């Protein structure tokens, strides 16, 4: 799959960042606002930092944020969806109302409020994005559980005395993971874009470089230094496209009905 290979390549590049470039991303002092050239493949920004290096390190941060938030969202979503789908009744109703609430709220505004009020640290941002992205997963898991609840193997497990938790985690959940994985991959892309959006508002973590923050910093420089906004945005898009392609590929693998006949 094309997406998978792109992700692998980019992750590799991000991890090997120190080996690929002699520059320290935070070190100023180089010549400022250089166009792309031999020593600086992507040019430099207004403080003389090498853009290529920044992009490499920024990719690390963006990838980490994306994956961590998506993981948080998946964990919460699975828990909520499993309980709602398995127990049904009042629990289902309450959990579904909660899910609707979080699904309907425009995430960007809530994110802005949360980060502005609770602090602009990386932990806050990652947790906030994760906490706001779980409804989709919850709905998927709930649908899976609702349809598998009455299966024979579940009845058999109950007959031998398995408790609810055991049935949920060891019987039904492993069979329901396919759409969750697909959704998870799409969530990573979404999370990365959300973080970039936050950074664009100036609400990113000021102590780290992320691709979104680079775009934010490059905004006032647009006329003089087109390379400062082009490259981070390009790589940001590349990461998101890669994850979306992976998600699409996985979806086609798991769901043959989605394939064209």
């Amino acid at each position, binding site marked *: 799959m094309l997406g998978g290979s792109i992700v692998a390549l980019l992750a590799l590049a991000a991890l090997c960042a120190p080996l690929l470039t002699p520059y320290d991303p935070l070190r100023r002092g180089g010549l400022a606002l250089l166009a792309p050239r031999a020593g600086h493949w992507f040019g430099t920004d207004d403080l003389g930092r090498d853009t290529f290096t920044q992009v490499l390190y920024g990719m690390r941060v963006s990838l980490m944020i994306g994956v961590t938030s998506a993981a948080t969202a998946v964990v919460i979503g699975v828990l909520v969806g499993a309980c709602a789908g398995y127990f049904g009744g009042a629990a289902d109703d309450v959990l579904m109302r909660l899910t609707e609430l979080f699904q309907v*709220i425009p995430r960007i505004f809530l994110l802005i*409020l949360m980060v502005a009020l609770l602090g602009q640290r990386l932990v806050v941002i990652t947790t906030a994005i994760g906490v706001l992205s779980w409804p989709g997963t919850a709905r998927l898991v709930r649908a899976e559980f609702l349809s598998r609840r009455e299966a024979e193997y579940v009845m058999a497990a109950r007959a031998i005395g398995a408790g609810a938790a055991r049935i949920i985690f060891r019987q039904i959940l492993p069979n329901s993971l396919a759409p969750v994985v697909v959704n998870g991959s799409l969530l990573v892309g979404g999370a990365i874009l959300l973080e970039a959006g936050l950074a664009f508002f100036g609400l990113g973590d000021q102590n780290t470089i992320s691709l979104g923050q680079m775009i934010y910093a490059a905004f006032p420089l647009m006329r003089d230094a087109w390379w400062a906004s082009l490259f981070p945005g390009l790589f940001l898009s590349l990461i998101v496209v890669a994850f*979306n392609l992976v998600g699409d590929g996985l979806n086609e693998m798991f769901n043959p009905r989605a394939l064209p006949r």
Partner: protein
Amino acid sequence: MSRYWGRRLLQAIPLSLGVVVLTFVLIHAAPGDPVATLAGEQSTAQYQAQLRHDLGLDRPLYVQLVRYVAAIVRGNLGYSFTFGQPVLALILARTPATLLLMATALVISTILGVALGVETATHARSPWWNLASVAAAIAYSLPAFWVGEILILIFAVQFRWLPIVGMTSLEGYSGLAHWLDLGRHLVLPTLTLVSFNLALFARLTRASMLEVLAQEYVVVARAKGLTPRNVVYKHALRSALLPVITIVGLNLGTMLAGFVLVETVFGWPGLGRLTFDAVGARDYPVISGLFLLTSEAVIAANLLTDLLYGIVDPRVRYA
């Protein structure tokens, strides 16, 4: 039918209240004491206590919540210190600009997106349409504000064909010239928004169409001898559009995020720009007012789409 409507309306009420409570909680979760900030560093404890009592901040939290809800219902969303206006008036003043941009972008994206989705689904084996699908997947992944910046760079800065920022030029045209000028300014922001939303609609329609086309009644329609165009557009599309409507309703929040960012990039004087400025100034009354209003608007929109769904697909009403 009215039972379905009544039920949906009833469900929407706790949702709206939930949003209000959430806003209240967030405002009060902020670190720092507003009374201390207002009173200043030199104030005495007595003055602060007095101020606290006057502002009603010494009452228990649930009393404050009730007062907050009452204030909102009366239209009092607070006062903005940065802009010097009541929050509600400020938001309402900026809404028309946003609505203009939104309506234009949505109409174009919907029509073109659905058409693209249908075509890529029905011609799924043709390489050209497959390319279009991939292009849609890419367009869907690009950050909207970056696309906007690139478009500005290319069309406005490099080629100087279109204006860079704002909604109208400084010359202050009137009459027809005013509308033409407005149109010129609309082009780039709309293009940016359309690229993302079109891709979204195209992907959703395509996925839904593919599932519908596999159904038996489509085979029957073809067997009856209906033209392919008839089968697709009159029979399959209707069923295919239903899940699209629902998902779009649920995705309104995400689309709003796109609008906010694009408005900022293009300096469009609407709600998005307001958000950006308010965040920069940490003007919490405006930010929470915006959050509240947009959430309620999305809830209302979802209610509408659900009701629409109920009209179009009778099976839903009796579920």
